[in-house]
């Protein structure tokens, strides 16, 4: 056998191995996605889809305030959640990495993310137990006489944000911790030798070095948060709908698939915009 034919047969073998995965991805991801993108340019007529190309759905999105509010609500909630989660998770990860004795660190970390392992739906529901009118927090506050009427803390944006932050603090603690322990102690020593105090060391050395990891975690938070339907639906109620809730309304009650497709494309564009904005800090591992 010449080398050329040997190479050819090797290559054929390789294609045969990679083909199933590629075909699966093309058939069940790429084609559906392109089909949906095309559908966002069609329109609905009754229960049928009219295959006439136009930008009506997108025009309607920008002219109907109820739809546009969905996007701004989503962005506001997601940004709040991302910032709060980073601010809460960073100190936690730092304390676990720096203050907790080495042999207890793994345990501390496992404990910090333990509620991760309840089902996602149940986690939002358990916040309802705490926040609802007759819930634990209201009963406790009533009991010690701080309030005389139960507070309305469930079924609004605050409840959604709390539920989200609870989830993403766990996720971010994990990513930030793994960043912190990868740092060589020499950086800290060098900074101390050069006369930096603890705060200066943190601000000028540790924080910049962990920033790529933090940004990656924050971006992940952004993506997962803005695309989530469950938490806002369970905790947020029906007053301030976010984009995924509006998308679900389109395919449910209104049976308007083209509009749902257009809103999904807009959701994706929001994620892409976020990616472009923080791309230079992102450290996405490339093999």
């Amino acid at each position, binding site marked *: 056998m010449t080398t050329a034919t040997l190479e050819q047969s090797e*290559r054929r*073998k*390789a294609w045969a*191995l*990679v083909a*199933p*995965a*590629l075909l*699966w*991805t*093309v058939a*069940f*991801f*790429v*084609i*559906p*996605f392109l*089909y*949906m993108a095309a*559908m966002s340019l069609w329109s609905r007529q009754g229960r049928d889809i009219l295959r006439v190309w136009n930008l009506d759905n997108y025009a309607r999105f920008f002219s109907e305030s109820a739809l546009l509010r969905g996007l701004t609500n989503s962005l506001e909630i997601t940004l709040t959640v991302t910032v709060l989660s980073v601010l*809460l998770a960073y*100190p*936690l990860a730092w*304390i676990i990495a720096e*203050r907790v004795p080495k042999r207890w660190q793994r345990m501390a970390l496992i404990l910090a993310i*333990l*509620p991760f*392992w309840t*089902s*996602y*739906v*149940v986690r939002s*529901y*358990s*916040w*309802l*137990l*705490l926040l*609802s009118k*007759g*819930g*634990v927090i209201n*009963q406790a506050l009533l009991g010690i006489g701080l309030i005389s009427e139960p507070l309305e803390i469930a079924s609004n944006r605050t409840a959604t944000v709390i539920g989200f932050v609870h989830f993403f*603090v*766990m996720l971010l603690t994990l990513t930030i911790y793994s960043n912190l322990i990868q740092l060589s102690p020499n950086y800290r020593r060098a900074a101390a030798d050069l006369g930096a105090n603890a705060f200066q060391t943190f601000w000028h050395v540790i924080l910049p070095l962990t920033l790529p990891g933090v940004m990656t975690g924050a971006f992940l938070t952004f*993506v997962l948060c803005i*695309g989530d*339907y469950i938490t806002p639906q*369970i905790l947020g109620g029906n007053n301030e709908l976010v984009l*995924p809730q509006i*998308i679900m309304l389109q*395919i449910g009650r209104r049976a308007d*698939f083209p509009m*749902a*497709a257009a809103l*999904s494309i807009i*959701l*994706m564009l929001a*994620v892409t915009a976020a990616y472009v904005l923080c791309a230079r800090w992102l450290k996405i591992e490339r*093999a």
Partner: protein
Amino acid sequence: MAFDQQARTSDVLLHQGRLKRVLGSCLSWLYLACIYGFIFLPVAVLVLFSFQDGRLPVPPFNGFSLQWYEAVFADRKLTAALANSFLVATTSSVVACTLGFLAAYALARYKLPGSALQRGLLIAPMTVSYLIIALGLLAVLNTFGIRLSLWTVGIGHVVINLPLCFAVIYASMGDHHINIERAARDLGASDFKVMTLVTAPMLMPSIMAAFFLSVTFSWDEFIIAFLLSRFDVTLPVEIWSMLRSGLNPKTNAIGSLVFLVSVAVLLVLELALFGRSRKS
């Protein structure tokens, strides 16, 4: 004199430093306590009120009862959903791991044209919201008139888990394995034998990691399972429909059960992995 003063200032500095450190560690522990409280509060309340002897899972706690756990096991729909979830999670993960392993092997061991593009394509679903993946699939299935079932849910779950399995296994395919594979080939093993009897066992830790990650994601996935199923549903979807009846200790009971089982599995895995890493 000068020396004395210097000694005194350094003494004061030392004292200040110690004070600061004590204060700092007090603050650290306080923060730790608060944030662990925040993280555990919902789970604690969930588990506590699953034992509620009454119809509402809110205070006051009326007393200890196992009636809601009995209700869970007596609920045919819930146990069926549990079995469905298990079936979908394991089947879709086996498919995702197999496809992911084959693709990783091909892209790591052979030179293929456009391999960067292929890797990008295989990873791409990771960057898209589950909701959007589900909607696309739903639109195509509707157009072709394919009926929704656990199969369609499984297809969706392979789509979201394949990138993960591929990435995990591909990342662990180091070049140092190549020589062992070459040795096997020199000793007369066919390509298929090399792959299944040499490469796969060497990569078993990462294949298992990919499999369990994939099972976890599929087990807990809601939106794809919700949109792509009809009569047979998975556990998160069944729990979702239980939520419509409002706060209910039975939901607490099933939630606590899922939590306890996951933690038990996690502990077993942790001990097994810990044991292995100590041995090697």
